[in-house]
């Protein structure tokens, strides 16, 4: 066993918007930062998101995904981050030792702070357990996006999309522009899960029908997908007998949810939260493992890259502070933040007592209008936020001014 050796102050795993922002912020705060990413091209999934709508919050202008990525990379270079693409982390220990592999070499890194920013992957057909045959032509929406926008491969001619997540909606328009016929979007829930503006500009603009409370119950075809059976589903998400109908298509895209990619985190002993499938973190974005931070889609799924980048920047600053020894680990005295009525989850899930300001991100359970979200301690309301349209597809944020520190046992976010 080689002697322990500090290589740098902060290692960031993942070079998407969250990781790049974390690395830049940590470097700006004075830390020496190494960022590793397994892909040859930095920027993560932004590179294949060639549509526009990024950057309004982060850069004050409307950018496409690749342009947003380029800005994030340029900012990291300017901040002096040691960027290492083509480098995959094979091992991460609770002591923050990393074993990395890249073409032709294997390196060992060690740092007081590690920021997890590995992003997420898509739910697949296997996870949905859709019955039927196993023909070609069934893709996750993101894979179809990569094939269309990065590899110049035509995915199909007559396309049905299962799930109304944003990637599926964006691909409905993209494939229409590429000359395919998109015959519809099928959504299990009684409301769409993508952003309203994507329903408008990707479906409504092209007359693509959205079938709410419907899902695919069977896949047909031997070599290539021939058709799928669709049925109406009830409120308990069960198919209603007699409502089945067939849709002829050679391509089925799945846009049915994203899963944080936490294999490395788990092996490092990071405790995950059931609702988010990401780490439990405090307001510094530190996980239960001292010195391991988490941000972006590996922590919880964001609806906007801009928010993932902002979160990354916050996590990066805390990681730099911890590496400099300025931030002690005081996790024994954390204040839990819990989701109350109407709230699916909160992030962070705990607050340090010394926090000056607390930014709580949350998602609601179901859509409703004219609501107020409150952060409460007992019967004391510490902060509130008016939500004209509360929607699970939209992450909301409320800020708590903690004054000279929080002297409470427990915080709750609730919807009124």
């Amino acid at each position: 066993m080689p002697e322990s050796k500090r290589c740098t102050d902060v290692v960031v795993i993942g070079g998407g918007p969250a990781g790049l922002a974390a690395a830049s912020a940590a470097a700006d705060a004075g830390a020496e930062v190494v960022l590793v990413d397994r892909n040859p091209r930095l920027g993560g999934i932004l590179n294949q998101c060639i549509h526009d709508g990024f950057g309004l919050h982060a850069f004050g202008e409307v950018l496409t995904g690749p342009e947003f990525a380029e800005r994030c990379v340029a900012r990291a270079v300017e901040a002096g981050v040691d960027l290492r693409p083509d480098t995959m982390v094979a091992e991460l220990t609770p002591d923050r030792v990393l074993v990395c592999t890249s073409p032709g070499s294997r390196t060992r890194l060690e740092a007081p702070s590690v920021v997890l920013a590995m992003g997420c992957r898509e739910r697949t057909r296997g996870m949905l357990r859709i019955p039927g045959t196993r023909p070609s032509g069934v893709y996750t929406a993101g894979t179809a996006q990569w094939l269309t926008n990065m590899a110049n491969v035509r995915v199909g001619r007559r396309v049905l999309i299962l799930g109304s997540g944003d990637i599926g909606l964006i691909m409905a328009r993209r494939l229409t522009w590429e000359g395919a016929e998109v015959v519809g979007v099928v959504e299990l829930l009684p409301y769409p899960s993508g952003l309203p503006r994507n329903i408008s500009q990707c479906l409504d603009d092209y007359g693509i029908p959205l079938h709410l409370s419907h899902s695919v119950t069977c896949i047909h075809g031997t070599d290539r997908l021939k058709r799928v059976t669709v049925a109406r589903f009830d409120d308990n998400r069960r198919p209603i007998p007699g409502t089945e109908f067939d849709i002829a298509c050679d391509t089925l895209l799945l846009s049915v949810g994203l899963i944080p990619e936490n294999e490395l985190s788990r092996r490092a002993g990071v405790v995950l939260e059931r609702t988010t499938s990401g780490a439990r973190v405090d307001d510094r974005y530190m996980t239960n493992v001292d010195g391991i931070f988490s941000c972006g889609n590996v922590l919880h799924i964001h609806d906007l890259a801009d928010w993932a980048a902002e979160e990354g920047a916050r996590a990066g600053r805390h990681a730099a502070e911890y590496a400099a020894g300025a931030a002690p680990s005081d996790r024994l005295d954390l204040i839990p933040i819990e989701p109350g009525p109407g709230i699916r989850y909160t992030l962070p899930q705990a607050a340090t007592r010394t926090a000056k300001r607390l930014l709580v991100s949350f998602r609601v359970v179901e859509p409703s209008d004219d609501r107020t979200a409150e952060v409460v301690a007992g019967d004391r309301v510490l902060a509130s936020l008016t939500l004209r349209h509360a929607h699970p597809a939209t992450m909301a944020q409320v800020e708590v001014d903690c004054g000279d520190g929080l002297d409470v046992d427990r915080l709750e976010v609730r919807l009124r």
Partner: protein
Amino acid sequence: MNERQMTCILCPNGCEIDVRWTGTPTDETIRVEGNLCPRGVGFALEELTHPKRTLTTSVLVRGGVEPQASVKTAAPIPRESIEMARREVARVTLDAPVAIGQIVLVDAAGTGVPVAVTRAVPRRATERSAD
């Protein structure tokens, strides 16, 4: 009095707006409700009179690390011009290296709006070293 509901697509807020107008929609005759910011009024007016969209697609690249580069119209163009602009862009092939901002077409579908590269594509190394 005419009335239409629409979703403003200018930012991720995606405001659901109610638009009312009499006669020809203009700054004076239009009334917009539900918008969180003043840009909603401009969007509604444009949407009623001359809807525009930004086209984002790809062009082929010869000799690059990837076979295509992403492109966009430098500004939104009339919605009815999107299809022709897309066909024009589809005929373009660039040689690597390709830089962000590089102009692919000077005038997309007669709109006067250029089409520019949004993702740089470096040249592919012709020979890789042994290790």
